[in-house]
């Protein structure tokens, strides 16, 4: 009986809940008088009533679960947005903590979801020149840069045959809504090479429907390797400095050219101790702090 009652409560609001509880309790009081139902309904309320002659003890109704339809289910992954991690600098930690407070304050108002370079995002911004109008742009996130309040992300799309890239600031007060249409990762962190790739890889429909993604588990990695336009490119993507894994080099470059590009390899880089930056402990600390403050 109580299971049914709680289920009902979930769907209805508080007022209806209390009404139903009263109804239930009333029913129970009536049923109490019929001893043959005692075995069928083995509720604690009945037993208490049988033991003591006083009025039935008030059991508060179970709390209703409020489903906030405006915010999609928050991801249950341990994801800390990269702009929270402070850069490797000789800055006072007070500066980062004060800035983090501002960022958390902004996040309480605007929901900034989890997304990576390679996910398709739709952004709604207010127009500064026209009062009250909103601009919506859909694109693939090619880069997430900047730390702290000035963190930015670039969205790329091809509109009417023209490639368009817009750099948005995550914490700008003009941002109205950021929604992730398709959450996925690519083989690289930086997809600037899409500028020199065939336009089909950067075209996304503005009316694209959001693709369902799991809240738990790993983020799906799209192992897509992109076909490039003929050279010259804006940057020499084959060089080891960019460390790109998401381009089909075998279709556009000869093995000799690939070997020639390896001349710019810097094999000592992974062993450079001065460039080491272990953020694991910092990340954990900051993640805890952010989660704690967001819940307040």
């Amino acid at each position, binding site marked *: 009986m109580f299971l049914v009652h709680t289920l009902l409560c979930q769907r209805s609001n508080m007022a209806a809940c209390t009404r139903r509880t009263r109804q239930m309790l009333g029913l129970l009081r009536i049923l109490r008088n019929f001893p043959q139902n005692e075995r069928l309904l083995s509720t604690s309320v009945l037993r208490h009533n049988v033991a003591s002659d006083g009025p039935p003890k008030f059991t508060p109704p179970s709390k209703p679960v409020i489903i906030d339809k405006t915010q999609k289910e928050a991801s249950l992954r341990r994801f800390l947005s990269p702009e929270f991690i402070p850069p490797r600098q*000789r800055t*006072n930690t*007070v500066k980062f903590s004060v800035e983090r*407070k501002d960022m958390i304050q902004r996040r309480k108002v605007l929901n900034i979801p989890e997304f990576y370079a390679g996910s398709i995002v739709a952004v709604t911004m207010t127009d*500064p020149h026209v009062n009250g109008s909103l601009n919506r742009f859909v694109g693939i996130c090619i880069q997430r840069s900047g730390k*702290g309040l000035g963190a930015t992300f670039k969205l790329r799309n091809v509109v009417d045959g023209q490639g368009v890239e817009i750099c948005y*600031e995550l914490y*700008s007060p003009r941002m109205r809504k950021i929604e992730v249409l398709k959450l996925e990762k690519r083989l690289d962190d930086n997809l600037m090479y899409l500028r020199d790739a065939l336009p089909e890889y950067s075209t996304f429909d503005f009316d694209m429907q959001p693709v369902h993604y799991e809240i738990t588990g790993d983020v799906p990695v799209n192992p897509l390797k992109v076909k490039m336009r003929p050279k010259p490119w804006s940057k020499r993507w084959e060089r080891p400095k960019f460390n790109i894994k998401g381009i089909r080099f075998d279709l556009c470059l000869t093995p000799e050219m690939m070997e020639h590009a390896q001349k710019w390899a810097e094999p000592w880089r992974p062993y450079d101790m001065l460039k080491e930056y272990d953020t694991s402990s910092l990340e954990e600390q900051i993640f805890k702090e952010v989660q704690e403050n967001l819940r307040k």
Partner: protein
Amino acid sequence: MSQGNIIISFESAWKYLTSLRDLRAPIIQGIRTHRTNTWWDEHLTEDNASFLKKVITEEYKQQTTDKLSPLKDEPWPRHEWVEGSRRVGLVAVKLGMMPVWTKSGERQVVTMLQVQDCHVVKHLSKEEYDGHTAALIVGGKNVSPFHRPEGYLEVFRNAGVPPKQKLTTFCVSDNAIIKPGTPLYAAHFRPGQYVDVTAKTIGKGFQGVMKRWGFKGQPASHGQTKTHRRPGSLGPGGDPAKVFKGKKMPGRMGNIYDTTHGLKVWRVNTKYNILYVNGSVPGHRNCLVKVKRLTHTHTNSQVCEVKCTCPQVEYLFEGEGSAFIFSASVFTFSSVKLKKELCTVLSMPAQSLTLAR
């Protein structure tokens, strides 16, 4: 010195240290002797050194807390603001920069200056200073006394304040003098005021004429022989037959005091004592910086000196929750009577002081 924990008195230890420092002159004149300078740690055991460090930190804390209460340490009388009076400034630490957005959506960049342990250290009257205006010497960040000369530490001992890393002089009118030992906080400035910030610029070393003075140099190609970044001609020819003094030439660039004028204060965080000042400020991160009120009045009415008593509400960047939060950790007073005492210290009217959670 025996082993184990020796509890020596602070006074005797200090006398010992200062005596060591005076052994600088050679014993016999005229003979080249090796200088017998010692550092404070050299002849002490580890226990004594750690004890001294502990004692010093405790003493600092005691001194700061003594100066916090305006009841124990009676401030000098407060005077009314008069047109043309000049207030003290502050010494702050440059933390870093961050963006700030206005209500209309425009983005500005802001430098964060944290006021760490700022105390007024000395008052120089008109006669002592230059004959025209009185001066107040203000000190910045706390620093250890062990590697500083005796004469430097004496000034702080007289004021009853821990030794500071940076000392600056502020020319101040007679109605704005403050008793030595009073702490100064970021709330000294309000959002909407304009400040001048002075600091030592980042040293660039010996630099060429293009970087140092912004010369255009010569073209990269079209027949230039070994001349691409040179200064070119040094002046007119035979008539003066000399190079004028002050000719811009290569040399050491940076590491000199420079001032940026007319920077607007966007925000004041009173919990951490941080001033958010518009634009960029000379100096590297964590450098000490002198912040004072704008002296040069521009013709543009927006930048004119604002009457320092009441804050202009329209300049306040609304929507900033922490703009005026006086947290309990900074000021531990809650009663109205003590609030009035506080106001005399900060030289601002009682109505503008709000104590919020």
